[in-house]
């Protein structure tokens, strides 16, 4: 028995394993890159101090600062959210409405990749942000009953993100009619309550799981909205060193990395065979344990590396671990691309079909209701190349960011020595990612 929507309703198709040759290529390339990076990368921090440069084109300025346009986009976001929520309550199969495709493919995977390319578009679209604005939960006009406790940091977002990935990957709930609808309403209630308790902005940057997660991915992009709201450009990845090292940030990143790893693991024939004969309850238990175990394993590997690095510079490891956490974000993106690239392009087509009949009522709004999924839109070979390229590039991004942070914090020789352990951890993540991709 299969568990989870990805394995069943929307899924049921898995990529072919990456051939051994490409696996070896990816792993060796990651190793070469790591050692070469130590030798040749810049001796002064370069990404840390970079400030985005605004694009001063007049038309772009008027587009970006148009309040009307801003609200049109927000209204569109709210409409899509409303339709999706409504559709998620329809007691029909997972591919009969737009809801599961919208949530698990277009939003969770598609938007994640979009963020990394175009910057934080979610900030302009987020229906929860819009709700907070409509309810006028903004200080100082609105006086929240309490101030957000600093020590809590991003922990609420990390916990809620775990809730989402558990729902998606381990629970039997996506199979249940209406469960997705109930989950969306519950999450919305939590978010509105959080905004009411602490103010809109405070909750969005600490407790709104998707906002925090997508916000991190958006920092990979060369595009950003600067303080004046103008569109600005910056070197790729240079947004990440500006992430504030807050409690819970590392936990959120580790949840993101571990959950994608587990999803890959749970699609290997090894896992499928091992869990094939379990009862549903046992399957859910196994998937929950697998998900938690993978997340903890990622945390252990990273923490272990940071303990070693901290020993080198005689610092305590935890603050150091938080200060390097942003260097894992490119690897998070790499895992998302590698695991979900073909899923987005193939199963994502179900959304093209369902957009004409979002509630599963037999409509044909845009004439695409008869669209049949084209399985051959990406070949197996293309998928393999994209997967290996993503993993290797993610590794390079991580190494570069870690190097930049290390030389910003320490003198050159200590900086070099702190990096060995972290490099080893990154090579391990990369090799594991490749191993899972080739182990189907």
């Amino acid at each position, binding site marked *: 028995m299969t568990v989870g929507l990805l394995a069943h309703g929307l*899924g049921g198709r898995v990529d072919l394993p990456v051939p051994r040759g490409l696996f070896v*290529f990816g792993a060796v390339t990651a190793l070469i890159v790591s050692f070469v990076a130590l030798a040749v990368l810049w001796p002064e921090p370069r990404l840390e101090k970079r400030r985005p440069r605004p694009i001063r084109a007049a038309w772009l300025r008027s587009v970006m600062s148009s309040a009307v346009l801003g609200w049109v986009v927000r209204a569109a976001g709210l409409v899509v959210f409303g339709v999706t929520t409504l559709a998620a309550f329809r007691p029909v199969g997972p591919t009969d409405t737009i809801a599961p495709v919208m949530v698990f493919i277009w939003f969770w995977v598609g938007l994640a990749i979009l963020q990394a390319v175009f910057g934080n578009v979610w900030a302009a679209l987020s229906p929860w942000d819009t709700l907070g604005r409509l309810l006028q939960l903004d200080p100082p006009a609105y006086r929240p009953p309490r101030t957000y406790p600093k020590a809590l940091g991003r922990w609420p977002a990390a916990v809620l993100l775990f809730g989402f990935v558990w729902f998606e990957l381990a629970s039997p709930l996506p199979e249940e009619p209406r469960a997705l609808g109930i989950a969306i309403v519950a999450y919305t209630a939590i978010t509105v309550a959080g905004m009411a308790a602490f103010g809109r902005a405070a909750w969005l940057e600490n407790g709104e799981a998707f906002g925090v997660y997508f916000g991190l991915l958006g920092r990979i992009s060369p595009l950003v909205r600067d303080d004046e709201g103008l569109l600005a450009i910056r070197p790729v990845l240079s947004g990440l060193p500006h992430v504030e090292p807050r409690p819970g940030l590392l936990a959120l990143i580790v949840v993101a990395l571990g959950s994608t790893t587990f999803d890959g693991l749970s699609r290997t024939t090894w896992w499928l065979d091992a869990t094939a004969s379990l009862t549903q309850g046992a399957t859910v238990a196994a998937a929950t344990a697998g998900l938690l175990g993978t997340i903890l394993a990622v945390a252990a590997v990273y923490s272990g590396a940071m303990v070693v690095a901290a020993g080198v510079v005689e610092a305590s490891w935890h603050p150091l671990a938080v200060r390097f956490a942003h260097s894992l974000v490119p690897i998070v993106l790499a895992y998302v691309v590698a695991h979900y690239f073909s899923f987005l392009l193939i199963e994502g087509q179900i959304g093209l079909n369902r957009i004409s009949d979002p509630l599963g009522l037999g409509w044909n709004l845009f004439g695409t209701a008869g669209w049949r999924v084209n*399985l*051959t839109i990406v070949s197996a070979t293309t998928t393999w190349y994209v997967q290996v390229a993503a993993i290797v590039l993610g590794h390079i991004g991580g190494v570069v960011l870690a190097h930049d942070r290390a030389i910003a914090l320490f003198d050159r020789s200590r900086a070099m020595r702190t990096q060995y352990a972290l490099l080893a951890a990154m090579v391990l993540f990369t090799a594991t990612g490749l191993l899972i991709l080739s182990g189907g």
Partner: protein
Amino acid sequence: MKPSARIAVLVASVAAIVVLFLLLQPGGGDEPGPSRSPSTPTETATATDTGGPSPTRSAAPSAAPTPDVVEIEIEVEDGRVDGRSEYAVPVGERVRIEVQADVADEVHVHGYDLMADVSPGRAAVIAFRADAAGVFEVELEDAGKLLFRLRVTP
């Protein structure tokens, strides 16, 4: 390290990576065509007639130059699946899946999204050309029971 040495190291490592890729890419070296897969004929399941009402279809005789049809026969009894957990076919091959079951359900080939009803005494037969590569689950839909995985390889 001097800038010149730095550039030399960079160029050398890029060259090493390129060479590595040329050596290790799939189909690198001597393989000519895209759709060669020598190991597959052994995967062809044999069609043994188990009696009972025969399904409505037999291997299509009319198609042009006698295409090979990979036949996969599965039997479900008391919730147990009689068959291998995975069958492999090369891309482009015609596949014919026949499922006998002692329960009424629906056989679903995921991805290709093909379905056929099955009931005691009435086999489900699904025949199609496996045009897309990937690993596809074939399930008893209502029971949520995995029958086997169809591995379509380029």
